[in-house]
């Protein structure tokens, strides 16, 4: 299951072609990546484990965004809202209801599915910039809605909610960071596996058909509005589960962690990873988490500016994201091989 999510490095090393077929290379790299993923938490410090866990969580959220944008051609700058809903669902359930953390994931997913579907309904009439605007507004309004005083009893208002990090079950001899890493890896592996299958399925083809030409898709019998709002819902589900995972892993939620900046991070991760590429989202997750840190280590005062410059450079070098760059390299090497 983790196989599909590790496939980010596939095309990169398949470029070495050397006698093996593309699929054989893919399998080889998948196994190698899986081994690395399993060995990682025993090789590095706890803080790095935590960061990689977060990067995987971001990757899942970006995957959700990618299902919407890359495979259905809809656009969202408001996914921080769904991430927030997922995170708050998990936090409130654990804080108020004393419910085990793993039960919060399906509930968060379900709530986000419904919310996303409902937000997708008005979004049906919107295209391109207009959808961007509506979702932009949603992202801006989210922190205010979370601070809304009549629901403060649940959400903890400005203070947010602190939850307790779960320990490893069955007396496993690993610490909580390591356990949460594996937990995240398993959940996200499952989610990636579902996404790959969804995209390949009949439903997935309908989604892509709508992206490429809604009129043609409609005339071939695809229910355009149903599929569009459903995709919005599924996309929100992914991002919501990522949010719930994020809440469990960080052990803390507060309105100001879910500002427009989070939407931007996810969106940037999507574009940098490659729109419409599932392995690309993993690169996107890593970029979304580590690029701001790198910028900060270059210059504290000018971190934002450095980050911006990194972004511009990345777009110059790979206008269609990491996936696009890899595709380009592979096709060049393949041509030379012939």
């Amino acid at each position, binding site marked *: 299951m983790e196989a599909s999510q590790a496939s980010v490095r596939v095309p990169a090393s398949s470029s070495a072609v050397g006698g093996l077929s593309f699929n054989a290379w893919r399998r080889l790299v998948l196994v190698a990546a899986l081994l690395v993923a399993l060995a990682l938490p025993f090789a590095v410090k706890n803080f790095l484990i935590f960061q990689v866990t977060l990067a995987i969580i971001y990757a899942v959220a970006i995957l959700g965004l990618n299902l919407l944008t890359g495979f259905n051609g809809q656009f969202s700058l408001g996914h921080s809202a769904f991430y927030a809903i997922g995170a708050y669902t998990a936090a409130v359930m654990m804080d108020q209801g004393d419910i085990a953390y793993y039960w919060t994931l399906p509930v968060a997913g379900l709530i986000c599915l419904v919310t996303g579907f409902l937000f997708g309904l008005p979004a049906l009439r919107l295209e391109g910039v207009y959808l961007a605007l509506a979702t932009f507004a949603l992202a801006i309004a989210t922190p205010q809605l979370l601070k809304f005083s009549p629901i403060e009893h649940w959400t903890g208002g400005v203070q947010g909610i602190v939850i307790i990090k779960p320990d490893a079950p069955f007396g496993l001899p690993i610490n909580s960071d390591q356990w949460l890493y594996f937990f995240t890896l398993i959940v996200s592996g499952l989610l990636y596996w579902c996404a790959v299958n969804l995209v390949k399925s009949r439903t997935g083809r309908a989604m892509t058909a709508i992206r490429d030409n809604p009129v043609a898709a409609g005339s071939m019998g695809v229910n355009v509005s149903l599929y569009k709002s459903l995709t919005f819902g599924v996309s929100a589900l992914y991002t919501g589960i990522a949010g719930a995972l994020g809440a469990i892993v960080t052990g803390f939620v507060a309105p100001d962690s879910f500002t427009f900046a989070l939407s931007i991070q996810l969106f940037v991760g999507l574009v940098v990873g490659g729109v419409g590429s599932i392995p690309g989202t993993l690169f996107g997750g890593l970029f979304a988490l580590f690029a701001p840190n790198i910028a900060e280590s270059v210059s504290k005062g000018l971190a934002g500016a450095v980050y911006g410059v990194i972004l511009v450079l990345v777009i*110059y070098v790979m206008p269609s994201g990491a996936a696009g760059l890899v595709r380009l390299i592979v096709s060049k090497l393949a041509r030379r091989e012939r």
Partner: protein
Amino acid sequence: MNWELLLHQVLAGLATGGIYACIALAVVMIYQAIDHLNFAQGEMAMFSTFIAWQLMDWGTPYWVAFVVTIAVSFIGGVAIERIVFKPIHDAPVLSHIVVFIALFSIINSLAGWIWDYTIKSFPTPFGSRSLLGSGLISAHDGGMITVSLGLLALLYLFFRHTRVGLAMRAAAANPESARLAGIRVGWMIALGWGMAAAIGAVAGMLIAPVVFLEPNMMLGILLYGFAAAVVGGLTSPGGAVVGGFSVGVIENVAGTFIPYFGRELKLTIALLLIVAVLLVKPSGLFGRAVVSRV
């Protein structure tokens, strides 16, 4: 219902609406020129305002600083288009938006680094007395409304009655035909950026006395500017101004008369407005509906 309070709120709304109208105007200008929404618009305006503040801090009189700032912003806008956006002209739309975000981040961070994050007060050229002694609306508010209406009139004249204005409209409407007719489309886009930056600068300098000057002053205002542009229709500069004033009035009236909206859910009003208008009339009140051939 308290009619005097309502009247007061409507007038105050018109005043803040002037701000939104200016920003919406700048948004619509760039949208006309390049078919994108510029998410860095607010930051560009903020940076221009800081330039004006710096000039005045060095002792330049207000109106000199005003004109110099507009000129600098115009050149800055053209430069951004030429340097940053021209090389990625053919990149996918989403990549463009990432570059807007990058620009946002760069400008915001630079401003914070140069002028730090403390709040600065900004002078008004109109004085702070109340207008006509009525106590309902301040002179600065009146000035703001006048300037945004004046700006709109100038833009109207520019686009309807000058050759350059005509060329810009042609370049936006049909780039290929325009190029065949001898219009340098690339420069028209750059000119659009320059004008939007200049309008943004005016808006920033007018808003700064009200909201105070600091690097993050623009985010909420930009949202309202977008809301105004959507209400009026992204294709109509006149609509943007009307939209700005109506958003200002709605914000103030709703904030006063509906519980919670005033303090806690101010930005949510913009969200509701955008969604509501887009649902009822996606092209805005004054925009034209785009019909595309399939």
